[in-house]
């Protein structure tokens, strides 16, 4: 098991390098650079040259990439980049006084809190709902669960968000309109401060968590139902019943455990996506999360921020997928990593 984990972790290096190289080349191949214009004003060539020199955008692409990965000093050049290998993601080209690390440090914790809560809500609603729907197949319970799932899957958050604001904040006045309740410094770099963890925090979190959580709950419920319907027809379930186990034990211990494998599979990517921030929900609820940087950095041609958030997403994704693979062994005795 340990050797397996170590082997997998060595595998991350080429994957991340590939992601870095591919993204680096791709973002620079989009027409239009970060400093060609201010608004719609075309800048004089010498102004553009000054700025490009400051950020080393006048170097050939390979050299920029080398500077990005190993740093300026190892490259024998003057500059501020200490390189990816030493955890330096560079300076933002758009937010002129901030480094990419600054940006991630302020926005990731908020996105992570929102994402984890949403995923938990998704699992708490999705798995029981899917199980009930599968066990009572073709009953009214099944139909209403399936209807609810399809409803929440189809209603886009751009509709659900403003609708919830209108109902719960403006009409009923139960919840605040927008914002997020915790600020830096965070515990362990991402957990909200205990002082911030009050009623106000959960009131602010309710709508965005609900809007995000129900979306994933719907997906999880449908997957749980489909998978469980297949599993309960397996021979070993018949065996379990035949040896006289209580129905509850059959379902919870034998069927559900196995039926959750597809669900666990999607939790990996879902975790990475939710934790790194969701653009629409964060924008609607005025949450200072990381989601906006995935979108805005493309429009701003903020190469370094785009690289930074993409790499961070990749790291979280590969780690989450490793976790998922390890969980398989717990759920299915046939899977071993030795």
């Amino acid at each position, binding site marked *: 098991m340990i050797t397996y984990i170590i082997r997998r972790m060595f595998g991350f290096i080429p994957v991340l390098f590939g992601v870095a190289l591919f993204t680096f080349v791709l973002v620079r191949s*989009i*027409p*239009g*650079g970060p*400093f*060609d*214009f*201010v*608004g*719609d*004003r*075309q*800048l*004089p060539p*010498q*102004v553009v*040259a*000054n*700025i490009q*020199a*400051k*950020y080393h955008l006048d170097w050939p692409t390979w050299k920029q990439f080398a500077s990005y990965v190993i740093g300026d000093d190892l490259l024998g050049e003057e500059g501020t980049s200490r390189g990816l290998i030493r955890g330096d993601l560079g*300076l933002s080209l*758009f*937010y*002129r*006084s*901030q480094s990419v690390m*600054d*940006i991630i440090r*302020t*926005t990731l914790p908020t996105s992570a809190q929102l994402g984890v809560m949403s995923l938990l809500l998704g699992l708490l609603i999705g798995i029981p709902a899917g199980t009930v729907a599968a066990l009572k197949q073709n009953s009214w319970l099944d139909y209403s669960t399936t209807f609810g799932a399809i409803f929440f899957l189809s209603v886009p958050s751009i509709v659900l968000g*403003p609708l919830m*604001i*209108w109902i719960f*904040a*403006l009409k009923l006045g139960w919840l*605040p*309109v*927008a*914002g*997020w309740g915790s*600020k*830096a410094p965070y515990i362990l770099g991402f957990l909200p401060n205990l002082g911030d963890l*009050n*009623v106000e925090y959960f009131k602010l979190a309710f709508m965005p968590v609900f809007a995000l959580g129900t979306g994933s709950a719907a997906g999880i419920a449908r997957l749980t139902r489909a998978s469980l319907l297949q599993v309960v027809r397996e021979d070993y379930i018949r065996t379990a019943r035949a040896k006289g186990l209580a129905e*509850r034990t059959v379902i919870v211990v034998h069927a559900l455990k196995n039926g959750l494998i597809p669900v666990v599979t999607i939790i990996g990517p879902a975790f990475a996506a939710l934790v790194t921030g969701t653009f629409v929900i964060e*924008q*609607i*609820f*005025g949450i*200072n999360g990381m989601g*906006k940087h995935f979108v805005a950095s493309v*429009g701003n*041609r903020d190469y370094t921020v785009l690289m930074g958030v993409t790499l961070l997403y990749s790291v979280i994704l590969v780690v989450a997928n490793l976790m998922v693979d390890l969980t398989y062994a717990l759920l299915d005795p046939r899977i071993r990593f030795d």
Partner: protein
Amino acid sequence: MLKNRKASLLLVVFAIFALLLVACQPETVTETVVQEVEVTRVITETVVEEGETVEVTRVVTETVTEIVEVEAEPEMVEQPVTLNWNFGTEPPTADPSLATDTTSVDVDTNLFIFLTKFHPVTGEVSPSLATEWEVGEDADGNQTWTFNLRNDVAWVKYNPVTGETVQEVDADGNPRFVNANDVVYGVKRTVNPDTASDYAYVLYIIKNAADINGGSEELTLDDLGVVALDDSTVQFTLETPAGYFPSIAGMWIAAPQPQWAIEEWGDKWTEAGLIVTNGAYVMESWIHGGELNLVKNPLWIDADNVQIERVEGQMIVEASTSFALYENNELDTTGVPLPEMDRVKADPMLSAEYYNAPAACTYYYGFVNTKYPFTDRNVRAAFSQAIDRQSLSDNVLKGGQIPATTFAPPGIFGAPEPGTLGLGYDVEGAQADLQTFLDQEGITLDEFNALDIVLMHNTSEGHARIAAAIQQMWADNLGVNVRVENQEWAVYLDTLRNTTPVEEEPHIFRMGWCADYPDENNWVHEVFNSDAGANRLRRNCVDANCAETTTSEFDELTVAAQLSQDPAERMEIYAQAEDILANVEAAYAPIYHYTTVAVTKPWLTRYFSLVGGNDFSSWTLDMDAKLAAQGN
């Protein structure tokens, strides 16, 4: 077994509920207070008095200091007069040398004092740091501008720990006041190529600025045409005479800057707790992407007249969320999203809070003058006259936008009254012009339509809506079919460069322009002069790809106006230039002048500044009315 599990589950549920209940309980706040208490004690002591031992009882009242815990009463804290503002986005920078966008300029306007300022209503240049200025000439015949500065503006820094605003002191412990050297430093820093300022080019009017910013080998920053004659006098020497220079001097890029703080902290000098400022407000905190709060600078020269004591600035991007916050009394003023416009106008309360103020921006469609058939003036004039600008404003934009027939909007020095010059909506004139072109070329309308005319805009719902409306007007009024295309902003700007091969250009493109300073020079000259401007219209191009340009009457006029010192003469030249561009050449089609569409709570009195940032120090807010509305 099962029962047990149920029981334990119940227990867990109860435990969670209990926790929640505890969390929900209003906390009893106790305070530790150091009190002086009068204590009365009866003291019995034995005294030896005249050889006898006597017991004496005395009553003593004494004051002791003791530490007690008391239940704090909900204090009626005097709330500072607070403006809840939405910046709308994270300001990309607070550095005056680097700011280019309206949000950053808003921040700088409140943190820093500029040499001059624009009157919030009239837009006229008025004294600020500079009390007076005069124009002159140096020995070589270059125009000079000499500014006299006030000497009582303190450099201050906000201490986030103590919450105090303290004046900066120099190495000798003397308090620092803004002086002419700070202005010189600020200007030099903007021009310095190492600063990599986007807006450095606006200062190219200053002697040697363009060369120094371009990395000249011979010239150094010391050769820049700005010098401190003494502590309170700064003199600029210009490349070419510019009557509008006091407007340029009032821009953030020429603001005084604190050399010592910038050298100590580098790029990070604009962070809260480090930034040294000299304006009406100081930066209390700045959580990037989240909030930027300002508090009043008690040492500000006019602090007595600054009524708003605190500005809580959020960064809500989504217009509908910002509007919801406004409706919930969490913002004091905000923009109105287009989908809400009809409701706002119909609602008796919101319509009273609604205001549209002219903004110094113009929306226009440019014609690529080297792309057939827009090489012909008749075609361009036909397309321009076939746009019903009033209908567009009333039915599509809905914000009281002013139909434009010339470029610079009202309020800009030299701008003609909208509708007096240029080409307005005239269907018959448009049809006649198009027919003239068709006859002259000997083609039919169908053949004209086969040319596949393309109108391009940058990707945005708003631009798409306008393009669809105008496309329909052209179809109805002229019978021409125009294809609408869109591109992502940066790609779009790349396409519109005048170095793009003409085949890849659209025939018609959408663009807008907003004032940097309130003078026509910033408009017709900087945008459309084929020599000095970006020349996206490709006027006066020698070949279709515009490798070389010549000049024509219009271009000579805008240069003449730049050199003229006589305001009346300048006005006249600009009127002429505007009419040539929009009518005689019909090189582009002005469409509308922007308005700022906003709702403002009755307790806030605000200005809508035509140019420059929002200056919170000139606004007032009735805090009692606000608290009452919030139900506090």
